[in-house]
């Protein structure tokens, strides 16, 4: 079974990814809504949208960092630029997301071209700091001096007196794709479960699948091969007649466009563009996502993005009340003790758990979550087949 110019293995892989993405609203909702574990359900539109959007961001970042090894600390700038583009299109034209998304990709590509052209003159940490410097300048200016353009701290939003020249009488009053309104959902009740199928999620999910497919093609292309060669040995590449600069710049611009698209989608789901999107912590977040998931792998960035967003949104909401609910069946002393211990890790301390997990993953799974998955898979396979063919699988091409 081959299709879309992919090998059999990749086609299967893509089909699995498509299936998982489309079934996300069901898969992320494993607990009945009335159970105490419903707290861990993640199948609500906003979080699913975020999974898809940050998945796109991380996939794009991986094309630069995972393939070429150039560690950018400034990709959040493109995220922000993408968001601002979309909101400006809302303000000027109307709530259809298409013009905004196109503009977001174009503008972020231009920004990436400029920043990349300058920053790629250096490599290693010097490159990282240059990108960081550009992004921080964007952030600081967007937060303060450029407020007429960005609405500063509050974030750019649509006002009733904005032009919106393409808004018709019956146009939806929130972001939509030719009439398909992003924040509308259909709900499906089965037994104790409730599954939510949200337009916005499927819009981002389909785009995510498309860009995942693109990244798969890039990974398997001669271009991708050259990028991997850049990471391994730039000297040899130069003496093999390859000019590495345009390759790295192309990778930088492509990943910048992914980031711009992700930023644009954020504003497509929620029509507001905040300056914090450009802060270095946001750039750092995508770095963490990619490394945590497994840099240079196809699935890693998506896993990493999902992992971090899940923590941010689910663990931060576990408060005392919830804990009491869980441990209520225990004797009082033990209940209070367990709640005291949990205090360290959930609710307002969710950062601590995240920090610990970073450390644990890096210490024990240098290849990120993907390596963890491979180890488990290998362990199973070994048990099945007596451990003979594990060796051939353990050495996948670097882009697995």
């Amino acid at each position, binding site marked *: 079974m081959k299709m879309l110019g992919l090998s059999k293995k990749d086609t299967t892989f893509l089909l699995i990814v498509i299936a998982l993405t489309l079934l996300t609203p069901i898969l992320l909702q494993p607990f009945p809504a009335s159970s105490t574990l419903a707290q861990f359900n993640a199948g609500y539109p906003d979080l699913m949208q975020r999974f898809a959007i940050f998945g796109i961001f991380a996939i794009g970042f991986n094309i630069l960092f995972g393939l070429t090894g150039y560690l950018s600390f400034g990709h959040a700038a493109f995220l922000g630029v993408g968001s601002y583009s979309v909101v400006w299109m809302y303000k000027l034209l109307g709530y259809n997301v298409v013009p905004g998304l196109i503009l977001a990709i174009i503008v972020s590509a231009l920004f990436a071209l400029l920043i990349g052209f300058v920053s790629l003159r250096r*490599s290693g940490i010097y490159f990282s700091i240059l990108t960081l410097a550009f992004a921080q300048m964007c952030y600081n200016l967007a937060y303060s001096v450029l407020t007429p353009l960005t609405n500063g701290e509050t974030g750019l939003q649509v006002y009733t007196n904005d032009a919106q020249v393409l808004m018709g009488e019956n146009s939806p009053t929130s972001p939509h794709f030719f009439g398909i309104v992003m924040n509308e959902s259909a709900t499906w009740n089965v037994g104790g479960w409730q599954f939510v199928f949200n337009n916005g999620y499927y819009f981002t999910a389909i785009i995510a699948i498309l860009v995942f497919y693109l990244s798969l093609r890039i990974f398997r292309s001669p271009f991708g091969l050259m990028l991997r060669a850049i990471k391994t040995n730039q000297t040899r590449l130069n003496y093999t007649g390859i000019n590495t600069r345009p390759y790295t710049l192309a990778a930088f611009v492509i990943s910048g466009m992914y980031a711009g698209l992700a930023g644009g989608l954020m504003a497509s789901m929620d029509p507001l563009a905040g300056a914090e999107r450009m802060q270095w912590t946001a750039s750092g977040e995508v770095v963490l996502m990619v490394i945590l998931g497994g840099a240079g792998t196809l699935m890693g960035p998506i896993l990493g993005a999902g992992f971090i967003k899940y923590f941010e949104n689910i663990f931060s909401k576990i408060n005392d009340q919830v804990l009491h609910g869980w441990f209520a069946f225990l004797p009082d002393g033990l209940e209070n003790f367990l709640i005291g211990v949990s205090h360290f890790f959930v609710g307002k301390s969710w950062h601590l758990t995240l920090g610990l997990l970073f450390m644990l993953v890096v210490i024990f799974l240098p290849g990120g979550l993907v390596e963890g998955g491979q180890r488990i898979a290998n362990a199973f396979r070994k048990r099945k087949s007596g451990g003979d063919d594990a060796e051939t699988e353990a050495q996948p091409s670097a882009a697995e």
Partner: protein
Amino acid sequence: MDAIILQILNGLDKGSAYALIALGLTLIFGTLGVVNFAHGALFMIGAFVAVTLQRILSLSYEQIDPEKTDFLGNPLKVQVPYVDSWFGADVGAWLIDWSVPIAIVMAIPVMLLVGFIMERGLIKHFYKRPHADQILVTFGLAIVLQELVKYFFGANPIQTGAPDAFAGSMDFGSLLGFPPNSIMYPYWRLVYFLFAAIVIGGVFAFLQFTTFGMVVRAGMADRETVGLLGINIDKRFTLMFGLAAAVAGVAGVMYTPILAPNYHMGMDFLVLSFVVVVVGGMGSLPGAVAAGFLLGILQSFASMNEIKSLIPGIDQVIIYLVAIIILLTRPRGLMGRAGVMEE
């Protein structure tokens, strides 16, 4: 003119903090080859050593004062510090007043210990790992450390003042022949600058004149050779890490009267200190110090009204702008060597 001198003083002061943090960061990077994102957290822990000491010295027992009432209308419980009752009110008050300088004495062993534990327990396993892994694991550690501090001390900044003896300002201008009171500068900030100069000088002297320092310098020049010298290099690495932690820690202690410490001050300084280190040139100690002062002074000048009115927002971006310009004109920062952190 006096305005310019004041800004230079401000810049030196800011620069002192930048230089001290960057110095430790460079020591670790230069000798151990580790990119330590938890270095800002060490600075923060240092500051909280001062807070802790202040808290310890202020440990109190309660005395009911029947004359007054608390916010619920009950008789007021007055807190009397134990040191007051042990040493008398005067000595007790003096001890609390001087808690910041005293904290330095405490911070050095504490920070050495923190450094040792960090290096032995975590960092040493990462010498051979890629820089990206080092960044991730130390970043995780930084988050853990700051969240622990937040858990125990809260998120609000905690005031830890300088001793009263250093309150007020010195008439710095009269030293330079300006009319009196034209250039007044707070004593504590002058103290901080002197302190930074001493620490920086001390570190350089230590590296210049001790055998240990020679090994370290040899290592910074060429890490392979350190391996060849070989006598218990592990121990030296640990000590080095402890030293860097101690430098960051005392810098944090002394900075508390200038900046009320809070749990995320380490993160606030992290990005900046990396910019400083890179502008100075990865692995170059003099470069780190020079870049620290340079960026501090430039930032102060950019904050002047005259310059801000010409270029709005320049004070917010100057550091980054300078970093970009320097890195584009001098490929490896001010004093960096080729091949370091470029792959």
